[in-house]
């Protein structure tokens, strides 16, 4: 848990309880984490942002201490659309009808969908270390499928749940360590909390459904959106780790310019976990982005 000035509260959105921590005053920022993590990824960045802004940190549906509804056969319940609706609802409940959303990893996919589906509410969006789901899945190469092996494994029916049950300590550690730049570590108590939150059968079911949705519902939603010309129109900041798979294998600004009309961004000297590996530059870039766009 984050200490003062952060205060925790549970926000119910359409019957799903979302764990949220709030601090600061000023223009509101919503921060979303990725897999296999929680809002704690922002522990170094959020206090810096909260000196100037209202900062809302949540756990995504299915993750952390948020509710984990049982997955449905159509993968709708863990579509990015449903996960984005939760987060829009949280901000609305907290009284913020216009805000900036910042997401890392899965949280960035939710942020992308949130900015598309609730364009009036999103002043600006920052996307950390991803290229769009649709781009990834339309450009599967040997390197991509090896680099993103967990996308295919976690989406493969019931085998991930059966193999991971009871082994989440190993899995969560391995999944994080493989993407950290060499020489970086996560504090043991933080890692322990990531593992705690991922270990229940409900969490394993929810988080695998998140990945199944990427290859089914989300891809269909993204294809339909692109066919209808739905690009991001709000200011879009794209940050990535120069040592991450994204940094080594994609030209992120070029790719994102196909999905947003207003893109800027840069690489940071780290691996995948920008807010934990390079918190100061990450916070600095986010602050100036929000200053320029609010």
């Amino acid at each position: 848990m984050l200490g003062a000035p952060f205060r925790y509260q549970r926000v119910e959105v359409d019957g799903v309880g979302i764990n949220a921590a709030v601090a600061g005053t000023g223009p509101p920022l919503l921060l979303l984490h990725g897999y296999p993590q929680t809002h704690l990824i922002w522990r170094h960045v959020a206090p810096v942002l909260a000196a100037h802004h209202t900062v809302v940190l949540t756990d995504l549906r299915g993750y952390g201490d948020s509710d984990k509804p049982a997955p449905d056969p159509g993968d709708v319940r863990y579509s990015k659309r449903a996960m984005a609706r939760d987060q829009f609802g949280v901000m609305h409940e907290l009284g913020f009808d216009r805000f900036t959303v910042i997401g890392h990893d899965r949280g960035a996919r939710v942020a992308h969908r949130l900015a598309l589906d609730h364009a009036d509410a999103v002043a600006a969006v920052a996307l950390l270390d991803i290229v769009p789901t649709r781009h990834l899945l339309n450009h599967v190469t040997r390197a991509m499928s090896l680099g993103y092996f967990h996308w295919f494994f976690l989406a493969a029916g019931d085998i991930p749940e059966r193999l991971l049950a009871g082994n989440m300590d190993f899995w969560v550690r391995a999944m994080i360590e493989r993407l950290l730049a060499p020489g970086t570590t996560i504090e043991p108590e933080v890692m322990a909390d990531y593992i705690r939150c991922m270990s229940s059968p409900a969490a394993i079911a929810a988080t695998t459904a998140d990945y199944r949705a990427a290859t089914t519902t989300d891809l269909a939603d993204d294809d339909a959106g692109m066919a209808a010309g739905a690009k991001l129109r709000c200011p879009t900041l794209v940050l990535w780790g120069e040592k991450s798979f994204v940094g080594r294998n994609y030209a992120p600004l070029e790719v994102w310019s196909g999905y947003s009309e207003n893109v800027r961004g840069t690489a940071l000297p780290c691996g995948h976990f920008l807010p934990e590996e390079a918190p100061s530059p990450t916070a600095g870039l986010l602050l100036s982005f929000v200053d320029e766009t609010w």
Partner: protein
Amino acid sequence: MNDHTDHSAVVSGKRVAYWAEGDGGTPLLLLHGFPQTRLAWRHVLPALAADRRVVVADLPGYGDSDRLGPGPAGFDKAVVAEHLVAFMRELGHDRFAVVGHDRGGLVAFRAALDHPEVITHVGVLDILPTADNWAALRGPAGVFAFHLYLLAQPDDFPERLLGRAPDVFFGHFLDGWTKVSGAIPPNVRAEYLRACGRPETIAAICDDYRASAFVDDERDRVDQERGARLAMPVLAAWQDPCDVRLPFDPAAIWRSWAGELTTEVMPCGHFIPEEQPERLIAAIRELLRG
């Protein structure tokens, strides 16, 4: 489970575990796949051995055969093919036919490409050449091939993950890829799990898949670019995809490698030698007549 006599030969210091039965005709080598052993040929072996010499070997690193070397290099299909050609020569067979299923099919394909003077006929079952396989996997279809990516991960990661629940992992494929119920009875299934679940076999299997990702793919592509072709009669059989729309055309892919090609779509799952032994026996007899 079987009443075949176990043999082993030592070739270049590495043990090859095998069965050999029958006499006469063009000798035939049968090679199994993942996650199996030579036991996969228990129905096919006696039928074909009625009128010819049939040898059924465990692939290097699988079953009771030694791996050929450390790391993925020990599972380079060119190295494995060379080794099995030497093994057959050791048994007195300078020329022979080879039929392989799954991983065994990759070895059979490579043996036929690299040793046209040795391999008289080749059969490949429910497999594509590695380069074609990587090229064919596009979009979400990769979900059906997740093991290719998982098993090729570095740093002992898959070894450690699978090692925690090998029966769950290997059982998933044995059960999920079978359509003819009862084709892999409980005692056979248990033997596959025993054979594949040993730490050294898990490590071998992971290196075999790493070889496919980092060695075999390149090698196949070089051959593809120089227009290499299989010089002997080829049988390519695969499972009927039924209502799954394949993101590739197996017949077109095999036609790009083979001049004298027979194809057959088998009404079963992945484990053709155990699910459709009668049809496979007939198809192999037909191949060997060519």
